[in-house]
């Protein structure tokens, strides 16, 4: 398990990342061209993904559990993504 110091550092990182996501919007990228919009989109979603992995890995201690636990959650995630991506593609 991690130390309190590490838990605190993680909290600070999560806080900063959330702020950065809001600043991207504040910067007006999302109102710009399609290229700029999707670049900003990618930055914001990747930041959310990193935050989620950090919370799961350290606060939920997945890092110290057998990999099989991560696979269970990963399977749920893949199922949800399969539904979303295939359904969205089906109407393009």
């Amino acid at each position, binding site marked *: 398990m991690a130390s309190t110091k590490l838990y605190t550092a993680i*909290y600070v990182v*999560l806080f900063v990342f959330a702020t950065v996501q*809001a600043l991207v919007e504040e910067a007006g990228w999302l109102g710009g061209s399609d290229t700029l919009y999707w670049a900003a989109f990618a930055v914001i979603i990747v930041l959310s993904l990193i935050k*989620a992995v950090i*919370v799961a890995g350290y606060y939920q201690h997945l890092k110290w559990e057998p990999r099989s636990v991560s696979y269970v959650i990963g399977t*749920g995630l893949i199922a*949800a993504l399969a539904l979303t991506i295939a359904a969205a593609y089906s*109407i393009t």
Partner: protein
Amino acid sequence: MTDDTPDDGSIETDGGHATEELPAGEDHDDHGLPPMSSVKRWFLTTNHKDIGILYIGTALFFLVFGGILALLMRIQLWAPRAPGEGLLGPLAYNQAVSAHGLLMVFWFISPFAFGFANYVVPLQIGAKDLAFPRLNALSYWLYLFSGLLFGVSFFQKATFSGGWTMYAPLNIPAYTPEVGATTAILALVMFVASVTVSSVNFLTTMHRWRAEDLRLRDLPLFSSSILLTVWMMLFAFAALLAALIVLSADRLLGTTYFVTQEGGSLLWAHLFWFFGHPEVYIVFFPALGVMAEVFQTFTGKRIVGRKWFVAAMVLVALQSFVVWMHHMFLTAINLQIKTLFMATTIGISLPFDLMVFALIYTLIKGRIRFTTPFLFSFGALLLFIIGGITGVFLGAVVLDYEFRGTYWVVAHFHYVMVGGATALFGALYYWYPKITGKMYDEFLGKVHFALYFVGFNLLYFPMFLAWQTPRRVFDYNPAYTPWHRLATIGGFILAVSFLVMFYNLYRSLQTGADADDNPWEYSSTAEWAISSPPPLENFPGLPSYKGGKLNFVSKVTGGATDGGEVTDGGTAVATAAGAGHGTAAATAHEEEHASHASFWPFLLSLAGFLTFVGVSGINKGGLYTPLAAVGGLGVAGSLVGMAREPFTVPSPELAEKWPFDGVEDMKLGMWIFLASDVVLFGAFIGSYLFMRVAEGWRNWHHLIPADHVVMPGLINTYLLLTSSFAVVLAMVAAERGSNKGVVASLVATLALGIGFLINKGIEWQHLFHVHSEAFPEGWELSTNIASSTFYLTTGLHGAHVIVGLLITLYMIPRAWRGAYSGNDKPIEYFGLYWHFVDIVWLFLFPLFYIL
């Protein structure tokens, strides 16, 4: 005797067979449970065998319920009718069709299979019970009350009448306005709650409570089929739950998902069939497991290609999630995706072919005993082959254009689904001696099968011949009248066959011959190694498969054997020397006394039932609102009562736990539940993304008022992140034994969570009352699809926050009394949930506030 049978008469298939004299059972008392003759016992019991019997009995009740509706339909179809002619009016017919489908698929077939799973799986894997016995009882009571709720729906003007697939827009109040239609949807929500609880329980048990050295790959085939079924259930039903919650919101709260012109009805089809196709295998897999088990027993032959059979089942379970769009070939989805799903559909038939050939080849290699269970299983195989072949037509895009919406579909899926149920009736005869301790009447069993098989084929095969009859319609081309009459006659013969079955089961219980522990010569699974019926805690010792055969590690009193130690006056468990991978050495100790009785699961489900009845008509006022309030209080009170009740469930020390060694039962259960919650939220977020793509991704902004800004979302992100950090600090404080630290951290979590809800409340109030040119009437749930997705998705998340805060409220006074000092486990388990809620928000924030 076949070439697989060793000289000592034991068979080594599926974990082996007890060959030595069994130690005397120690189960002299029922641990506070009243006797089986007492009605009270059945309300209190948490024992898996009792729950199994309850499931089987209740499922048979719903078989009769759904069956009577089917007979009413068949009477109506005796001749083509105009609306108003015949026994059933148009709305009554639509209700009968819809309710028949829903009852049979949800409340009969799967629960019937899970009755056997409840009874048999713990016996087959060498467990004393399921890992969470009270949750098992809760699953049952939720199931029963969900079915009763469905029954209530008939008395609220009308039950749901839009077909069992509940397609949009027929599922919205404009087309099905009756309160009963809403109740039917809520009954399904309650049913899914039962399924989810059950899935978590079975998965935890089957992964962590297997007897020593019983590897997953060596599970008996029935247990293997159940394990895969439960994994499919966990993920598939979560998608259905999302669909049902959205539908309930559309009906009760006025959201506009399924009335939205662009994508609304397609969204339902995607969500429903993402669940619906795995559901076909969820229904069929247990039947497949029964077929394999029964074929082995009554041919005296291990199933041919066993490991390939298991591998094929695994493959089908995975593939079942990538074929759902073959139910949507007639919708507006694009041709590329149709072609892809046609290919995946053809792909899923291949492993099924392998399984069918393995079963047939087993028959050829063995020597068949034509007992009733065998006849039903063999009949099921024949019916499934017909059902499978006729289904291939529907998997081809071009042919499906012709067949969709006709009786071809009706005939095909009845051959598959009722074909599966056929094997389950075989299971009823197969395990009847084990469950009751009595032998059934073989002659009557065969009469049942003969009537059943003839009735079944007379009922469903003519539907192929009259396939151009439109589905769900009682007026048809008069040229098909003879076929429909034949089907009606077949339906009644099928019904009569069940009268024979019920008579046989009842009569045999009263006067049948006593059954041996193992009435079948070549059965090879562990349930046949113990008495019929088995004692309350199943085994006379600790089951172990060390050495490739089932043995019982002896419990001794008063003397040490095999290195066992004696405790003072208690029961000693022999030490298993050299315990293998995934086992813990069982040290001698005074065995904990397992609990088997709790009234709370029944009360909780009753309260849930009242809540749902109240919610169904909450927009109508009257008694509905107070009923919902009383039910809600009952739910809260029952949960507290259940949490406070002392209930001991000793986890087996000597057990095979791969691949979850070191993850205790409660933690694994929580993780498995969270995996289903991932799919639930994933389906919600997926629905939002789907509707946004349908609308045009960047056009979406026109549906949102300028007042919907980032700041409230950012503040809530800060609050939730900080609350997560506070839970971590609570755990650290508990580890250090700091009582004050635990209390302070939990209070901080509570305060931050309340702050989150207040902030959300202020934001929502503001948005409800915006007055702009584009939104002069405010931005409410029903304003447009953007507002609907925003309020409902963040609302579901908010509901999770509220649940978390209620748990925190429960934990704070306990923490004050020192319950977690030096014991951080309960806080860790709560933290898993709370951090998950945090993670979900990490995605909702950008999707609903920034992008």
